[in-house]
């Protein structure tokens, strides 16, 4: 009997060593046949599973775009839900290939954490949400309030800075999971809920009476959110970076998932270069020449994913604002493909 137990342990030991060693991320991804993408544990509009376990959101679309670029098939992606605490270790250890989880680009993360931010797919800023019946109109009236937030986020640091700079008293209540923060705020444990403004709009949907709560006008920080990869693998870094740029370029050039096929016949050299009918840009990235075409036709351009997930017609109802194209007064600006 004991021998069989010992042998069972042997199996465990061997199945560990049965995994292959790694080389470059892109080769790894091609070898295993899918992109492993780290996402949030549920943030409507950014990365959120439905009850059947299908993920949707603007961050999810970026991962699908990467899969489309590598495999020509946007469904070849697997999602790993991660807490704020786990996300960087998961990336560093190679558990995931790309982290697309409403993560703010900061100097510390870019340097000492060994990460690379491959662009900004959503320009955000931190805001406050309060109950209407408090009668608070500005964040400066919040002295003495209890503030709920997530631990291990930049919001936790920003709120400390903001209240200290304005010499306001406050009590911070920091939870590990976003759902717990919402539940505590909903129960009245805190007067204020602070996170990225997009997050406030998204989480408001989960409250018992969303109409009873207002998002205050102040934005207290810059929160550029974007996909993250490991340092030291430039090929993979480029691929993720240009997946985002391809989507922005496509919007600028008017290529959508609907018209991508016919746009292939366009005379515009810029469009031709994007769609791979001219130039060898795919090969330079280590993928097929129709990489951008696959992204656009299967996932859509930036405007499409924005409107589908967080735009005015969704429950979140967020205006383009700073996330509009540079040519329309926003900040989304992609270097040209040439």
């Amino acid at each position, binding site marked *: *009997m004991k021998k*069989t137990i010992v*042998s069972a342990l042997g199996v465990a030991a061997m199945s560990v060593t049965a*995994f292959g060693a*790694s080389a470059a991320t892109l080769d790894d991804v091609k070898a295993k046949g899918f992109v492993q993408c780290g996402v949030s544990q549920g943030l409507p509009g950014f990365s959120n599973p439905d009850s059947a376990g299908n993920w949707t959101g603007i961050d999810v679309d970026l991962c699908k775009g990467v899969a489309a670029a590598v495999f020509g098939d946007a469904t070849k992606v697997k999602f790993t839900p991660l807490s704020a605490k786990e996300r960087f*270790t998961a990336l560093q250890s190679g558990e995931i290939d790309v982290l697309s989880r409403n993560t703010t680009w900061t100097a510390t993360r870019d340097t000492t954490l060994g990460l690379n931010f491959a662009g900004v797919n959503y320009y955000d800023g931190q805001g406050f949400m309060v109950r209407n019946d408090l009668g608070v109109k500005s964040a400066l009236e919040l002295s003495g309030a209890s503030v709920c937030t997530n631990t291990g986020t930049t919001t936790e640091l920003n709120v400390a800075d903001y209240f200290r700079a304005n010499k306001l008293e406050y009590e911070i209540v920091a939870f590990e999971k976003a759902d717990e923060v919402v539940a505590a705020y*909903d*129960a009245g444990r805190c007067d204020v809920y602070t996170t990225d403004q997009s997050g406030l709009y998204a989480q408001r949907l989960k409250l018992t009476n969303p109409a009873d709560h207002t998002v205050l006008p102040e934005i207290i920080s810059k929160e550029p959110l974007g996909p993250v990869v490991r340092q030291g693998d430039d090929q993979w870094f480029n691929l993720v970076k240009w997946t985002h740029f391809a989507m922005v370029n496509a919007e600028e050039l008017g290529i959508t998932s609907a018209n991508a096929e016919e746009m292939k016949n366009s005379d515009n050299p810029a469009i031709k270069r994007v769609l791979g009918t001219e130039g060898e840009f795919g090969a330079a990235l280590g993928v097929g020449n129709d990489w951008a075409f696959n992204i656009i036709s299967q996932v859509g351009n930036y405007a499409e994913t924005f409107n589908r997930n967080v735009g005015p017609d969704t429950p979140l109802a967020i205006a383009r604002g700073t996330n509009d194209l540079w040519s329309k007064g926003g900040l989304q600006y992609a270097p040209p493909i040439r």
Partner: protein
Amino acid sequence: MSNTKNSISFVRAEMVPEMAPPINESGVLGWMRKNLFSSIPNTILTLLALYILYLIIPGMIQWVLTDAVWSGESRLACATIAQGGELPNDWKAACWPYVGAYLKLFIYGRYPDAELWRVNMVLIMFFVGLVPLLMPNVGFKRENLVFMLVIFPIASFVLLSGGNLDLNGFLLPDAIMGPSEFKFWVDFLILSLIICGVVWAYMNATDTDPKQAVTITAITMAVLAVILFVMSVDFGLEPVETDRWGGFVMTLVIAVTGIVAALPLGILLALGRRSDMPAVSLFSVIFIEFWRGVPLITVLFMSSVMLPLFLPDGVTFDKLLRALIGVALFSSAYMAEVVRGGMQAIPKGQYEGAMAVGLNYWQSMRMIILPQALKIVIPGIVNTFIGLFKDTTLVSIIGLLDFLGIINLSHSDSTWATPVQAMTSYVFCAFIFFLFCFGMSRYSIYMEDRLNTSHR
């Protein structure tokens, strides 16, 4: 002296007839007098306790049964007028339709609907295998144990995950043969031959007949190969990733895997701690005391955040597997102490007897000491299992959706969001845990009593 019997006239010749006990010593009244109102302080205590019960019990019954809502489609069924529903504003009781609506999720997690039969089969196998194992009078214990410890875990692994494990080989460098399933078997064969060779060489060196030992080793390796083959073969089952697992099934998976892995590890550690070899016993002591000295939650943090950094580049563990490793190491330390307790209770004569009949260390442990020691620590093992079963709830903190994790997740669904939602689900969860743990502790007491008789 001789005929005193006749001279004492006051000795009774017949027995006094039996009389009914005094009214205040028997019956309900007597019992109450004796157990409730034996003295003034006792009477005061009784009345006070009854008053406290009066305050608690009716309220609980109202909350759970009479005032509770039993049917409905959404939160409106359990909302008061102020919250937009129809119940009176001071209403506070359980909202059972919410538990009903989520019951499937609570039990199976997000496991795909079409594949639920696989989970059900695992559960049926589990209970069919477990019940006769727990009943001391049913025979075939050895076969049953083999089923529960070998066949059941493999079958449940294949059923739950879909099997079809990727085996890529581990020994030969890629230059000789590219990674493939065939290469794995080649590697496995080479490894088996090496192990058999080592055993043969060792046996030869110690002047023992190597035939038997080599045969046993070869059979073990063959069994291993069969197990690996079953795990790697494609049964055509849809693969289900572990992030779709959850609910009560995951709680059971973690607890059962934890205990099955902890038992052999714990036995080894207990043997190590009682070993004469200083290096072995020192290592065992440090290992055991380390895991017993730190909280489980930091162990889980370590396995979820730190373990990936300790592994070679490119080797990754599934999140559930990482938690399982943490739980197994943690509980093996507690198991080791339980087993050690059992071994210390074995009289020294047994050890000496085993030595006297010429058994070597492993033989005497396997045939004399451990069977007796393990028998007396069955209650301790069950208690460790109860502790582990309760502790599995901690994996919800590192984001696994076990029973408690999925219950917490269900609170974020606004369809059923009411102030009583949290309490309702927790009472349900507490009731299930109570049933299982109370049942197990009763079983452990029953076994304790049963085992005790032989020592009196």
